[in-house]
């Protein structure tokens, strides 16, 4: 379908983008990679009044290792994260996750800032951001991931607020992300991530609720010396996954346990 009409403006700096959003007022949206927004607009599920195109803000496209932190600009494309040596050296799980998002064409344009701001329950980076206590930096403040993913498609971002950076801790120890899906380019039916960090495990789950989930019960069990297969049984504790076109709640809980076990066992 043809999207509803909208006004369009290009921003060449974050300040300009923010003032354009203010000028257009309610109903204006940022356009980054467009790989969530444009399909919604084509289905007329979204009808923004105006789009502020941030693709020209080149200084939002970067990967930087900064001591114990890895800083990634909001406009960094999935393909850049997938191939970046800096990411591979400092947070290899993130490069692996990036390489599993969508397909070549999606990865060539989709951005990390877009995934985070969109906050789809099946988004992959949010799981990693949450379980590793990443920070989401905007033009107004720094928001811990824990406070950022509030509900399905719901974040604390103000209408004129722009995500500028996602800051992860460096973690190059054993890790694994397992994304269960029917076809390669699909979103996760369920995803499970395991990362060794500071001697403990961090465990995250994708698409088992309205927001990403950090499986603290699994982490605690591992801390107390449980075997992966025992600890992973806790992966579905307290989960209430939605029934969607891909799977029913019981099946998703089953996948959460099985994939968590495999992620811990296969982490390297």
């Amino acid at each position, binding site marked *: 379908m043809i999207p509803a009409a909208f006004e369009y403006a290009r921003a060449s700096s974050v300040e300009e983008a923010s003032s354009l959003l203010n000028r257009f007022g309610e109903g204006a949206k940022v356009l980054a990679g467009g790989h969530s927004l444009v399909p919604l607009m084509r289905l007329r599920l979204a009808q923004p009044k105006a789009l502020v195109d941030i693709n020209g803000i080149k200084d939002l496209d970067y990967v930087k290792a900064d001591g114990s932190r890895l800083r990634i600009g909001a406009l960094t494309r999935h393909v850049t994260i997938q191939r970046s040596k800096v990411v591979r050296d400092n947070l290899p799980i993130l490069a692996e996750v990036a390489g599993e998002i*969508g397909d070549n064409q999606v990865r060539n344009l989709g951005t990390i800032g877009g995934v985070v701001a969109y906050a789809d329950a099946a988004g992959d980076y949010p799981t990693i951001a949450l379980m590793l206590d990443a920070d989401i930096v905007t033009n107004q403040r720094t928001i811990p991931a824990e406070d950022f993913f509030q509900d399905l498609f719901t974040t604390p971002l103000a209408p004129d607020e722009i995500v500028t950076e996602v800051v992860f801790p460096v973690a190059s120890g054993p890790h694994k992300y397992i994304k269960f899906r029917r076809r390669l380019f699909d979103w996760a039916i369920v995803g499970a991530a395991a990362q060794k960090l500071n001697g403990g495990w961090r465990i995250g789950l994708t698409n088992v609720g309205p927001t990403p989930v950090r499986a603290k019960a699994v982490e605690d069990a591992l801390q107390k010396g449980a075997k992966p297969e025992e600890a992973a049984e806790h992966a579905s504790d307290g989960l209430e996954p939605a029934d969607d076109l891909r799977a029913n709640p019981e099946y998703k809980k089953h996948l959460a346990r099985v994939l968590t076990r495999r992620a811990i066992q296969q982490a390297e």
Partner: protein
Amino acid sequence: MSHKVVTTVNGRRYEHEVEPRLLLVHHLRDNLGLTGTHIGCDTTQCGACTILLDGQAVKSCNLFAVQAEGRSLTTIEGMAKDGQLHPIQQAFWDEHGLQCGYCTPGFIMAAAYLLAENPNPTEDDIRRGFEGNLCRCTGYVNIIKAVQTAARTMGGAEAKPATQAAERRA
């Protein structure tokens, strides 16, 4: 409000006034008359609309024409040169890499990107490189063979002569 877009498509400069909501694929097809780029879905999944944007494979149904301002694009019409099919097109022909042909322009552009990034792909590399392209007819086997053959004719050093057709010709 309409916006001016200037693009270079298959080496030729085009200038148009467009509405922001015009999708790039509609711009190519309706304003530029380049109807080789197909539309197979509304959800950015099928890949029929794949083109190269500054050398990178993208789905032209997922960009607005205004976003192509100042960019250089290659569509399927830009592949053949002087009446000679591009080696990828020739390989699709030789290996029977298509049936109805609807998905083919998208596959050929995705293959052009794949081979530019990796001149000697394994079968697995090729299958992964086509994650974003759907074909309802062929079952993909001959499409994979076509890319292997193209890799070989385009000079990828170790690409294997993977197919009967290639052996027949040899």
